[in-house]
């Protein structure tokens, strides 16, 4: 266990002590105890930057299940480090923010921080595991802890609904991903990502390649809220705002992005990968941005905006995978997509985190998040307003903030798609820049709505629960830190390119690098009058026009029928599956023993008949049949006549007596076939059972005692005839297929020699195979005790008396 492992699981270990802190130090907010951990982790991960920048990776292995190839291999490379820094850095800020957001008197802080630490540890595990199974384990732990965090206010129905929805969707994707992992293992024989990447060339034409790809992408798309699985994210906004800021903007929803980036070296060369990742990403981008405008809840807008931004990053990763098709790095103009993806990933985490925190402040200080009630808050909360406007401008892609730079690079990447000469992109490729541009217009509009509807316009004090005022300082520090990062990255974009972006690109596109080479990332603030700049200008102009005329065209959204929305579809799917399975179960679980017997026997007939014909096993061999004498004939006729007449007898008494007659005839058969022990036992047992039947008959309730002949039912007749025929056919075939001699010869020879007896039956019962007898008498004892218990211990009767 190395320090790296300890760092990954330290949040999990630390969470054990949270309840102790909570109980012991009631006066101190529990968050203060949590805060040092993410800061320490952040510093620890910062300390690995020099190594990563020098093209080294830190790999530590801890044996977990070596026999199955499942070992906790922690690997820090550029991509993992980037995510680890995001997780710990924003984690620290979120913990700090939550100290002021959650009141220690009202909330159950112990559970909150336990869940949050669980999530932090799980997320670190996802991004730093090199073993796919270990990664999957952490992956499910993120789903699980996110479920707990969304349902944190579990007394609210909407929280529970949102938690359940996110759980169902992400676990569905997680399980699909597990399937993909197993398929990858079948193809490569290893769970290690490094080794799978090394073998990626060999598996490209494997028949399981495509299923594995689709399974893995299902996992990534559900986790990262891509179309059409994004529907859980808006409902997850029921979580406390620090949770939304942390999980649903900066970290968990980027786990899918991480997965796609991590496996790009494996799958990236496939055209299906390109079309799915880039296509779904760009659809998600426009879908999320268009529907964000419809929202009236601040966090709702932010949720849809997150969906849309995640789609943007996803489409960039998809487009970037095309870079794998071009050999020469120096002329490879498509790596810019990957650069843009990574840069936007960082930017999105900064501005979306601060926007969520600002929305939380507004909610906290006014009591509502509904933009129809808000307005004119600028004089009351100038700092929050500043945070929001910078965050929103960055999100909209306006200079001089970092969002502008990544948006420009996004446009560059999308425009270059049209220059690709693979996957039919010469013709269809034009769709990418067009959709991207339209989506950016909508992004601009909702970003403006977010700021200006909240902070400018008419102040409506009568609609607010509280008198608004600026948030306490502690609540403002984390968003201020994030927003200053937005500005810093905006002015000095190359601050990170050497230390983080280039190593992360090396992890995503390893095959493009020669030994010792590295990606040269240079993000220039000003790159001349290019087409991207004009696109941005167009976005701003059209965006302003549309924002001004918003009330006029917003009614267009009402044209979209509510019934067709994906949210309704999910609800109905859930309803259908419940009512459907209920109906199906009700259909066959009738509660009547008769129908269950019909199922069992029908299946018996079906399976045995099919087997008989399938294996061509039916065989009638009369070669070893002994002669049949007159006694056998007579007895057989007795048995047959007795059995059949039971079916047609009206009186139950007669049936019982006939049954006894059949039993006695069977004992005569035993006599005839020279089995005196059996004959004796059969006689006595038949007598006893007939007597017991008569007891039952005597005690039948008077009301049901009227005697009728058994009614004829076709199914019953068919099934009984079928069972009889099948059993007869099998008995005949078994008789005709004797493969070896019976072992009875041994008993004949050794009964006296070895067991000192002459009654072979008895010697077999008590000596050769006495073990059976031992348990048969146990069965008898249990039966008698059962009868004793049933009759003597009747609690109902005792209650009555």
């Amino acid at each position: 266990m190395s320090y790296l492992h300890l760092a990954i699981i330290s949040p999990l270990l630390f969470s054990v002590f949270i309840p102790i802190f909570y109980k012991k130090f009631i006066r101190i907010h529990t968050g203060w105890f949590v805060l040092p951990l993410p800061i320490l982790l952040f510093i620890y991960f910062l300390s690995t930057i020099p190594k990563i920048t020098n093209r080294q990776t830190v790999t530590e292995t801890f044996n977990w299940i070596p026999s199955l190839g499942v070992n906790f291999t922690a690997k820090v490379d550029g991509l993992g480090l980037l995510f680890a820094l995001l997780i710990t850095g924003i984690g620290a800020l979120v913990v700090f923010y939550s100290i002021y957001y959650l009141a220690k008197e009202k909330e159950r802080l112990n559970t909150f921080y336990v869940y949050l630490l669980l999530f932090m540890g799980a997320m670190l595990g996802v991004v730093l595991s090199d073993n796919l199974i270990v990664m999957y384990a952490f992956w499910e732990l993120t789903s699980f802890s996110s479920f707990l965090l969304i349902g944190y206010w579990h007394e609210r129905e909407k929280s529970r609904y949102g938690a359940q929805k996110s759980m169902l969707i992400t676990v569905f994707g997680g399980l699909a991903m597990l399937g993909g992992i197993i398929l990858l293992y079948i193809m490569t024989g290893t769970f290690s990502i490094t080794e799978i990447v090394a073998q990626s060339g060999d598996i490209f034409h494997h028949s399981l390649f495509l299923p594995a790809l689709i399974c893995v992408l299902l996992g990534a798309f559900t986790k990262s809220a891509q179309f059409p699985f994004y529907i859980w994210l808006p409902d997850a906004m029921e979580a406390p705002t620090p949770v939304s800021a942390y999980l649903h903007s900066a970290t968990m929803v980027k786990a899918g992005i991480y997965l796609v980036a991590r496996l790009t070296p494996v799958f990236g060369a496939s055209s299906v990968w390109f079309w799915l990742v880039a296509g779904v990403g760009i659809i998600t981008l426009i879908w999320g941005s268009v529907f964000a405008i419809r929202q009236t809840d601040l966090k709702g807008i932010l949720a849809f905006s997150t969906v849309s931004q995640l789609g943007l990053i996803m489409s960039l990763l998809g487009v970037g995978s095309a870079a794998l098709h071009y050999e020469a790095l120096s002329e490879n103009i498509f790596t810019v997509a990957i650069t843009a993806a990574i840069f936007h990933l960082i930017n999105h985490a900064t501005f979306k985190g601060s926007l969520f925190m600002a929305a939380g402040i507004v909610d906290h200080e006014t009591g509502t998040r509904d933009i129809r009630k808000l307005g004119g808050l600028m004089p009351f909360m100038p700092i929050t307003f500043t945070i929001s406007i910078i965050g929103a401008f960055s999100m909209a892609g306006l200079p001089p903030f970092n969002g502008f730079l990544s948006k420009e690079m996004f446009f560059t990447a999308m425009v270059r798609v049209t220059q690709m000469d693979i996957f039919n992109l010469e013709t269809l490729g034009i769709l990418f820049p067009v959709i991207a541009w339209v989506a950016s217009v909508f992004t601009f509009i909702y970003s403006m709505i977010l700021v200006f509807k909240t902070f400018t316009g008419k102040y409506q004090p009568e609609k607010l629960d509280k008198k608004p005022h600026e948030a306490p300082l502690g609540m403002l520090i984390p968003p201020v830190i994030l927003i200053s990062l937005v500005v810093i990255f905006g002015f000095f974009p190359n601050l990170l390119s050497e230390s983080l972006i280039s190593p992360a690109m090396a992890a995503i596109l390893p095959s493009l690098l020669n030994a010792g080479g590295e990606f040269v990332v240079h993000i220039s603030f000003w790159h001349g009058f290019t087409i991207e700049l004009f696109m941005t200008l167009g976005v701003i102009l059209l965006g302003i026009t549309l924002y001004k005329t918003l009330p006029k065209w917003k009614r267009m959204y009402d044209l979209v029928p509510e019934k067709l929305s994906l949210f309704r579809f999910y609800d109905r799917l859930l309803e259908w599956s419940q009512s459907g399975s209920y109906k199906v179960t009700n259909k066959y679980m009738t509660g009547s023993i008769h129908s269950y017997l019909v199922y069992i026997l029908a299946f018996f007939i079906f399976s045995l008949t099919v087997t008989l014909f399938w294996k061509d096993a039916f065989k009638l061999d009369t070669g070893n049949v002994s002669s049949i004498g007159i006694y056998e004939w007579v007895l057989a006729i007795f048995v047959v006549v007795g059995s059949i007449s039971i079916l047609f007898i009206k009186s139950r008494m007669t049936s019982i007596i006939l049954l006894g007659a059949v039993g006695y005839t069977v004992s005569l058969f035993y006599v005839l076939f020279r089995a005196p022990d059996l004959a004796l036992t059969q006689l006595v047992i038949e007598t006893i059972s007939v007597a017991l039947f008569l007891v039952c008959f005597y005690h039948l309730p008077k009301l049901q005692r009227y005697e009728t002949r058994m009614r004829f039912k076709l199914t019953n007749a068919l099934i009984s005839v079928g069972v009889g025929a099948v059993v007869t056919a099998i008995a005949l075939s078994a008789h005709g297929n004797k493969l070896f001699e019976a072992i009875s010869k041994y008993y004949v020879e050794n009964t006296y020699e070895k067991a000192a007896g002459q009654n072979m039956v008895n010697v077999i019962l008590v000596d050769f195979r006495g073990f059976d007898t031992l348990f048969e008498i146990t069965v008898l004892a249990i039966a008698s005790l059962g009868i004793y218990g049933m009759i003597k211990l009747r609690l109902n009767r005792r209650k009555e008396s």
Partner: protein
Amino acid sequence: MRKTNNIILETAVKVLLFFIALYSVYIFTAGHYYPGGGFIGGLMTAGAIVLLLITYDIKTVTKILPVNYRILTAIGLLFAIGTSAGSLIYDLPFLTHAFGDVHLPLLGELSIHTATLFDLGVYFVVVGVTMTIIQTIGEDE
């Protein structure tokens, strides 16, 4: 109501019972050489007791034979498992029987087989089980 007098039955049973009991013991002991054994012997003994039950009532029979049949069942199982496990003491597999001739002071030369003890367990269980069932059902209101 005047009690029906079934002196013929009672007298006949007194005689018959003796024969049936004797026959059942014979069937049990002869089991290793001739048809019979613990199972049928036990059933027949139980049959003799049932005959008693038919002739007299349950109270009388419990007075004549103060046996708790559930305990008899347990004793039978103990006999069977004890004989089976006894071989383990001699480092032999479970349920290995031993036999041989033993000289006893009163009875003289006697062939003894541990399988008989096992069979005795079966006998007790069968008597106990049959009687438990019949007595329980008979006592039920």
